[in-house]
């Protein structure tokens, strides 16, 4: 039981560390002060899902990035510039996380 709790705490601490790390990386963002935090959270969740559910096909993740890109293009057409930037940046961030994960997985 204690071992299990310790494992959970370790996982949560690790996720918190990943979250803080992404937040640190993102703090130079200019458009919306809340967005770096939300995005850091999203990337943490993404890493958690990829780690927890490794069977999810790579295609699905690339599709997610593609959807973010397409959303960005549509938002831009409707002159919603800030949201377009958020969508594109989340898409690209996701792509980076996926690729890094693939490389690490291979190693």
């Amino acid at each position, binding site marked *: 039981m204690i071992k299990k709790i310790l494992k959970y705490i370790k996982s949560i601490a690790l996720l918190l560390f990943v979250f803080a790390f*992404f*937040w*640190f*990386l*993102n*703090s*130079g*963002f*200019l*458009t919306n*002060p809340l*967005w*770096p*935090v939300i*995005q850091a959270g999203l*990337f943490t969740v993404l890493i958690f899902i990829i780690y927890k559910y490794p069977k999810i096909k*790579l*295609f699905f993740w*690339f599709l997610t*990035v*593609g959807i973010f*890109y*397409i959303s*960005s*293009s549509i938002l*831009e*057409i409707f002159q919603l510039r800030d949201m*377009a*930037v*958020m*969508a*594109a*940046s*989340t898409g*690209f*961030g996701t*792509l*980076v996380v996926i*690729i890094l994960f*693939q490389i690490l997985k291979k190693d």
Partner: protein
Amino acid sequence: MLKKVNSLLSKARYHIWPLSIFLAITVIMILSWFRTGILYGGGDVGLPTYNPIRLSSIVKDIWWDVHAPGFPYPSALTSIPLYSTLAILQTVGMSPVAIQAILFSTLLFLTGLGMYLLFFEATSSKSRVLSFIAALFYMLNPYMEVQIWHRFVHTSFFLAAMMPLITYVYIKLIKSKRLFWYLVFLFISFAFSYIYGSLSFMVIIWIPILTYSIWNNFFRNLKILILVFVSWLAINIWWLYPFWTTGPTLFAQIHSIYASIATLLSLSNQNPISVVLRGINSFYTFGENIWVGGYGHFLMQLISWSIPLVTLIGIYSIIVSKKRHFYVWIFLFLLAIFVSKGTAAPFGHPFLLAFSKSFLLGAFRNPFEKFGILIPFASAFIFPIGIEKICFFLKSKFSGKRILAYVFISTLLVLEFIIYPWPMWLGEIFGSKSQSALVEVPEDYIRANAWIKDENKSGRILHLPFVTGDAVTYSWEKGYNGIEPSSLLFSTPSVSNGFGLEQVDHSLASINIIFTSNSFDQKSLANVFSNLNIRYIVLHKDIDWKARVLVNPDAIEKVLFQISFIQKKVTFGDLVIYEIDDSFFTPKVFTAEVYNVLTGGSIGFSIWPEIYENESWPVFFATPVNDNQDELSAQSNLNYSITSTHTILTPSSPLAYKENALAELPRPRFLPDSLFYSLILIKEQVQLVSSPAMNKHFVELDHAGKRLSEAHRLTEKGNIKLANRMIANYSKRFDKAVEIINQRQVGGLVDKTEKLILKTMLARHEIVLKDLNNLSALENMKIKLSDLGFVPFYELKEDIGMSKYGRKVFRFDVQKDVEYEILLKNSPSDSQYQGGLKTLVFQIDNEVKVLSANLKMGFLSFGTIKLDKGLHEISYNMVDSVNLSPEIGSQEWQLTGSVKQIGDATQPVFDFHTSKTDSSSLSFNIKDFDKNSIYRVDFDYWIKKGRGPILQVMQDSDWDVNGRRYMSIDKIYDKDNYSFYWNSGSIFFEPRLNTTEAVVKINGEPWNNCLAILGDKVACKIKEIGEDYNRESDFAIRNISVKRLLVNDVFLRSIDIAKDGVRNRQKIDINQISPSYYEGRLLLNGPTSLVFLTTFHPEWKVSLTKDGVSYVLPEKRHFLANGYGNLWYLNEDPGEYLIKIEFIPQKRFYKGITFSAVATISSVVVGIFFLRKKRND
């Protein structure tokens, strides 16, 4: 040998069709671009192919004498190979247009060829089709279209062509280890050295090579990489050595870290990831500077998004199919995007962090422009794979109708390579509709240059109107917009524009000051011409003076006409040439006993002709530089004049009040004695880390304010010990904020608004600190803010009617204990003030005095005062002039439409009525207008119905763009839901420096509610529809006044001014051998000064030889002459000397060439042995 030729021919045959298509694309594009037969030019590059022979003769010297008064351009050395090659084309009789067409076509073809060969070589697919698509993508992607070709930055053209080519050669070298490829690598490095004119490109070209090497057996290839890198250094050392030893001091003057960060943040905001991913620049495609229509259309936006989508598919395909040799390009792609987006999300912080730590990274402050080329470069490897994947997918989906797959792919490629980059195909790539990039230099310039050249006289040309920046607009037949080209168009050195260096530019600003002065002075003009070694004046009537805020050429012509020592010589079209009489000409090098010393802020360098107005011609003065003032203090017979180093303008009313100050600070939720206080500190830390770099000082001050608030609450609770700790914490945060503000101020980033916000915050802190009675913190605050120039050093007194508010404080750094005369610049005239400014109350350091004025030449003298060496401050309260609007009832009031004067004659009211169709207005000229002033316009208004008054101040320097006049003041005073009946309007007005006349206008226009009812902007803009919603307006105006504020500058001048500042001026027998070397004979009879009228640089050295003994004058005897030139005090024994004046970095250039030749030969020899050994292994 024959076998090798055969093999080469068969390879060429294999690749013939893609190469032919690249050639065809190049030919089509070049024919389309040059269909008018006219040269392209302007922008940051000017006219690089207009006269390559002349350019190659200029760039071979580090010191550019032609851009007078001279400046070192070590980075231009890199263009020697290019201009020498182009000069050959010009020598064989090619026109500038033909040279440009050949240059562009070569680069365009190499861009495609290089990428084709690289893709073919670097990937294992060996597919001609994929290589062809990669090359097409690299040639015709949005980045290449906008950032490379449209931006017209020539170093980028070369980078785009060189990068794939050099990477290809490097890969060939690694694979074959043949000497041939090694030599080709060195040749390309030398031939393309032009790209290193952009410092950052030196790094960029190595990134693909390094990435490839790391990814492919790094340690096995390390030796070759080192060999290649060392050889590259060796072949480039000829320019690198003088560049690195001359450059850094210059860059430090031009860019500070904070200025670079400000640029980085603003550009990162402009180029977020959604833009960077597509390689477009929104500023040019659908932003403010749009150059062609269509890119805002949603179809075009969709096409641009297809590029990152296809690339994404390419990445997916590479990973899924495990095409490992492509991984390196994915990595490079991610890196390119990551850096090019700068600080934009995601993951922008590390870039900012690195940037704030390194001055050298300043070269990447525009990362999208500098690094962005790597995006299409890396994408060119991934994009074809994406296309291939889509093709396979469609073929498998429509197995029966494969043609559908080909149709889809072809359509996609046509959209991306033909439709999207249509301006490249249709020759609309350069310039825009409003600003064409086509340039036809008028023949008059050639004739004017020839005329001056034929005169064969020494001296420089002064081009008027003088351009303070570096860009100019000419109204030539095709127009011209870009860097001032006079130094290229005239072979005589030209004083034509500013340098971007505060010290030199302030000195050159004296040119504009004398030509715009209301009452110009002949002697001041003679002094300025002497100071700059001017022989000829070329008046450019073809300049668009309004667009660039320059002095009106007609006004200059009137002044020149009245000058007795200038003769109008000849006119060539819009160019008028004047010559200065020999008796008023001053050579570039001479000796004179110079007794004038001018110290203080560099602003004094622009008004020195006025400071020395009472001295006979010519005026020369020295200024200590690099802390060598002690050399002067030994001499007793010098005339010191001092300009202020700082001016502080105190606000017209308190920025914070005792009653509110505490309440206006952030309110603490938990005090430091609370259990939860540590959470507050964590929150603050997070706030600080996550705040953008540009706002950190505000966050620090906010937190500091919170500490003060906490200290106040703790003091009330009686916990003095903890309160004192909070104040200590306050001081720490305050110091940090001041440090950031100081750095921002050095970078020129603290504008008036920011200063006001900061001063308001700090005023609240000061009140609370006083309340807490913490003297040490108050003292610390006073010292730090005084150093920043936010508050005066000496406390402002309120004796003899003086007020702390509305005070102008001048800070002086006095370098010699003597008696000084206090002078107030008398511009425009003391008569504008009540009582004629016969007396004025001054605070001098800690003493308040009433001083009487004496009118002297151009100045009001307020008597003398003895000042000790050190910091002093003189201040006075700003005084309003009399009302400068016309007398009531005078004809000078211009009334149009329905404006009636009602009420009595002493306080008239102007009643405005505006009908549905017509507007009404009242206007008048400002009396005794002076551009070097600040005015305040006050009036009362009462809006009875509809729209309120519009206050406009129209200057004769306002410019029209598309029929709309741009005025610096154009403000509507509209109704609000709070103030009714009479309201007051007040606005400050600072004229442009090229204004000679200003009109105040109050306008009444119909009220319109079209937008509120229809809610359709487009429809409301249609005149017929919009006017239907016009309604009448009624308002009244009274008490209109325009007052000039007394903000005239104060100077100090040592009273011993009876003797002339310059005596025994002697010509010397000296010849200019090259722009950076002079030699001759110098006859000395006693102590004197050597004046050399070329921009000051510590590496200008004078060496004297007598009786076979040579020595260089020590740097402590080297001073600034007239704010920009060189002056050496000579205290040598009488006799004849051989004299040499030399710019030392040029010697380094010659050493660099020798070293480069030896090192290259050595590395080639090493390379031969090394590669032979490697091949044998």
